[in-house]
């Protein structure tokens, strides 16, 4: 630690004697917590991606024997290297759960909200560092429980990541609905607690701790996205918690919230009067906002990166904020589009079609604003920029098919087919993953004080980009051919025999894409130790985090917190010589504000 830092910490009394444990494990510093979130997220991501590679192999070559299945799944689940049908469903279920919650919610939002909110608004730390630490450790605990559910006797939860009862409630119905599902529910309940603590902290921090001059309309779009995401989370996650608790009651204490009139394994069960449709409502009241909890931070990150690397102001700053707010509002009143054919009143279907298709408007605004930002820019095609451009591309490709799925009439025949799988993977899976990668490439110097290797970054991007389209583009066709998702194999339907070659192609792309993520992992972990030392503002960016020293210190800035005098997007401002003007640079005499 440098002398300057020592002096600063002394001055502000932020400093406690750091032991290894308080610095690296039970840290209350937002920058360390961000790194903890990121690395946990990456570990979970590896598990999730490996699972997807396994079940893709099963889909391409059903009935084939693979040594790797036997090695990874054991004799019980893959005797002689042939995958069993219930473990296939378990892989699909846990892949979905891990990717949606543990990677793209906690790994993405947890990492970048923690890292950037204090640094970009000019705060010394989160409003409550202690709550922040508890939030991470609860998330860690929930990750451990989720992973440990892979090792229970009857297998992990395998009723799909949406865990619809009665399937998820009755161990007689499917093997994973025993101890595996109990662990799933406990893990998610803890996860939700962690997420709520994080979200409340983000909201309070953004409202209260902005530095002098940092009005809401001078906030970088990243912060707007994280702020609004946290609000959506606080509104919707508790509803999932209630659904999970009621399901625990049904499973363990004999209540009938979601169950009624069930005859299974030769006997009538006592449940009477509940409804699985109620669970679907509660689940999707979180489930749909959840996809925006995932994608909004990614869009916020991209807004920042595209502006910086285009050397241009983000086009339509206020329109971007308005569209984030509009998406957030609409996201809470569209959940029913997952349930058009659930048996709910068709009139509700009409209402949800209407609200759902409205979301296309703010989404279109965002896409066109990105495109206009690129126009006549001076694009610095860093890996982070490539991933951001990639996000715009997949967000459009995936988003457009949403017009089909959001339309109740068209949803009838594509509901729960591979068409849906293709749609949501492109629009929120791949797009959010691109956002996360973009964020990592861009803020790695801020996190670790070193640079990632750009050429490895380029290889990583291009192979990923080709494979992402290679996997999900053909999937639309097999969905339109009527192939349902969550089928262990489609060999029982000669009708689908002509789709098998497409499945093989998809799996080939998936395996290559998956394996090439090793390039990223290598780059990431080796650069932490051996990467080139970063300069303070490598991307010549305007936001406040780059005014902080490379070396991490408690309280972020030695001495005074910088004061903000302008919006974050003064790139290529004609009134200035340089093509960037950091937010803490005072307005020149007579300088006019050139944006609205």
């Amino acid at each position, binding site marked *: 630690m440098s002398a300057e830092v020592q002096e600063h910490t002394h001055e502000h009394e932020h400093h406690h004697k750091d032991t290894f444990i308080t610095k690296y494990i039970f840290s209350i510093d937002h920058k360390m917590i961000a790194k903890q979130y990121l690395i946990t997220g990456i570990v979970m991501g590896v598990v999730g991606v490996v699972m997807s590679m396994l079940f893709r192999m099963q889909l391409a070559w059903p009935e084939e024997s693979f040594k790797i299945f036997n090695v990874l799944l054991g004799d019980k689940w893959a005797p002689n290297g042939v995958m069993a049908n219930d473990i296939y469903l378990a892989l699909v279920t846990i892949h979905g759960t891990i990717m949606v919650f543990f990677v793209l919610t906690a790994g993405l939002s947890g990492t970048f909200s923690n890292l950037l909110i204090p640094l970009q608004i000019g705060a010394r730390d989160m409003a409550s560092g202690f709550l922040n630490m508890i939030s991470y450790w609860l998330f860690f605990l929930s990750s451990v429980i989720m992973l440990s559910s892979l090792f229970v006797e009857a297998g992990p939860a395998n009723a799909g990541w949406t865990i619809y009862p009665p399937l998820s409630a009755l161990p007689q119905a499917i093997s994973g609905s025993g101890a595996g599902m109990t662990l799933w529910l406990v893990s998610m309940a803890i996860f939700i607690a962690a997420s709520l603590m994080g979200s409340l902290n983000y909201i309070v921090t953004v409202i209260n701790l902005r530095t002098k001059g940092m009005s809401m309309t001078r906030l970088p779009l990243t912060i707007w996205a994280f702020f609004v995401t946290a609000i959506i989370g606080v509104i919707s996650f508790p509803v999932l918690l209630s659904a999970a608790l009621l399901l625990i009651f049904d499973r363990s204490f004999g209540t009938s919230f979601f169950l009624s009139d069930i005859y*299974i394994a030769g006997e009538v069960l006592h449940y009477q009067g509940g409804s699985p449709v109620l669970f679907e409502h509660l689940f999707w009241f979180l489930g749909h906002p959840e996809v925006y909890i995932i994608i909004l931070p990614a869009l916020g990150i991209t807004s920042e990166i595209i502006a910086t690397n285009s050397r241009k102001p983000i086009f339509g700053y206020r329109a971007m904020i308005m569209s984030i707010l509009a998406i957030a509002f609409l996201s809470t009143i569209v959940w029913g589009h997952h349930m058009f054919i659930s048996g709910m009143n068709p009139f509700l279907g009409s209402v949800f079609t209407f609200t759902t298709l409205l979301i296309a408007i703010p989404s279109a605004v965002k896409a066109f604003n990105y495109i206009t930002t690129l126009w006549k820019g001076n694009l610095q095609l860093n890996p982070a920029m490539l991933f951001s*451009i990639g996000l715009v591309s997949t967000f459009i490709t995936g988003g457009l098919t949403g017009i089909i799925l959001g339309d109740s009439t068209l949803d009838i025949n594509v509901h729960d087919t591979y068409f849906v799988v293709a749609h949501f993977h492109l629009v929120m899976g791949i797009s959010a993953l691109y956002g996360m990668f973009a964020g990592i490439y861009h803020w790695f110097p801020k996190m670790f004080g070193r640079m990632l290797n750009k050429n490895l970054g380029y290889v990583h991007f291009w192979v990923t980009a080709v494979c992402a389209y290679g996997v999900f583009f053909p999937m639309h066709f097999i969905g*339109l051919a009527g192939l349902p998702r969550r089928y262990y194999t489609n060999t029982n339907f000669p009708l689908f025999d002509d789709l098998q070659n497409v499945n093989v192609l998809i799996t080939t792309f998936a395996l290559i894409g998956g394996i090439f993520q090793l390039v990223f992992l290598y780059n990431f972990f080796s650069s932490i130790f051996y990467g080139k030392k970063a300069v303070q503002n490598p991307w010549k960016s305007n936001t406040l985090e780059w005014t902080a020293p490379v070396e991490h210190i408690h309280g972020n800035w030695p001495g005074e917190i910088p004061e903000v005098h302008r919006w974050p997007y003064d790139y290529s401002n004609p009134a200035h010589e340089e093509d960037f003007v950091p937010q803490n640079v005072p307005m020149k005499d007579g300088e006019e504000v050139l944006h609205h």
Partner: protein
Amino acid sequence: MEILLVILVLVLLSIALWQLTKIFDLTQVGDKDDSQVANDGDNNTQGYLMFGFLAFIYIFTIYGLIKWGPLVLHTSASKHGETVDNLMNITWVLIFLVQAITQVLVHYFSFKYRGKKGNKALFFADSNRLEVIWSGIPAVVLALLIGYGLYAWVDIMFVDENEDTIEIELYAQQFNWTARYSGTDNVLGKANVRLIEGVNTLGVDLADPNAQDDIVVKELHIPIGKKIHFKIRSQDVLHSAFFPHFRAQMNCVPGMVTEFAFEPVYTTDEYRAMPFMVEKVKNINALRVAKSKILVTNGQAALDPYTFDFLLLCNKICGASHYNMQMKVIVDTPEDFKKWLSDKPTIVQEVKTANASKPVEGGLGADSIKAKDTAAIAKVVMK
């Protein structure tokens, strides 16, 4: 073979990228630029790659449409399905148009405006007019789509009570389907899982007058030209009754009766004879013959040749064997349908026959079923 080629291309591609990386590294030694920030050389290469990626997306899309386009569901076999397909086609035209234009803009701009030292970007922060244009146009187009969609939706989903339909129950359980025909009165008798006993696997209330002529079968026959009103039940978990060729789907929910109605417009024979279907079946059989050859050399049985049949599939995860929950659907001419149904025993007869053959186990006639029913209800009330 195709797969091998893809692997080869990708392997070559990755080798090329790797070599490029090395070349960049080597050339940059001279410049002493190891800042890991993109320089003009990188911008140039990546800009061209962006342009190349645009070509990739376009070629891949066109290749997909030619190669996999014929795989997707063709002519709808139900009346309302024609409206669904029509709306689908309109939506597709729109999607392709927007996709084609925006992907060009994204990737071409990334190529065209690739950075160069000394260039300065245009300071262009906002324009209310542009924002109005690209929120206004989607709003108008979507309003039209929503209008058409809702018109079709209401038409499909709300079955007029007075309409002349045939009422059939679809009954889902892990992992098979059963159908119950309402018989001459066209009204299904009451049923509840608490009444399941022996051959009465659907729990039909045998005391209900409406149930007397109900017929339970394992194969679904429906007549052409008449609207079929399905009442759908499940006895254990959620299932989904999915008839892809009829553009029909509805979840089966334990504890409630859901419904869906459609009118078949082709008989199975007519649909089999359509040129696209003849072609599809030919392709599938060619694939099956090729696969059979491998199976036979391994000492296994060859696959049966495939003939097309409409299918009812389960499309909501329902357990380990979800992937094999199906029922054959046969669309008959009205005469054939009548004939097929005429010699099927009613559920009441079936129960009687079953009881007659097993007299020792005690009578399970209508009365005792009713007694059990009352007991079951009493049990529920007590809870």
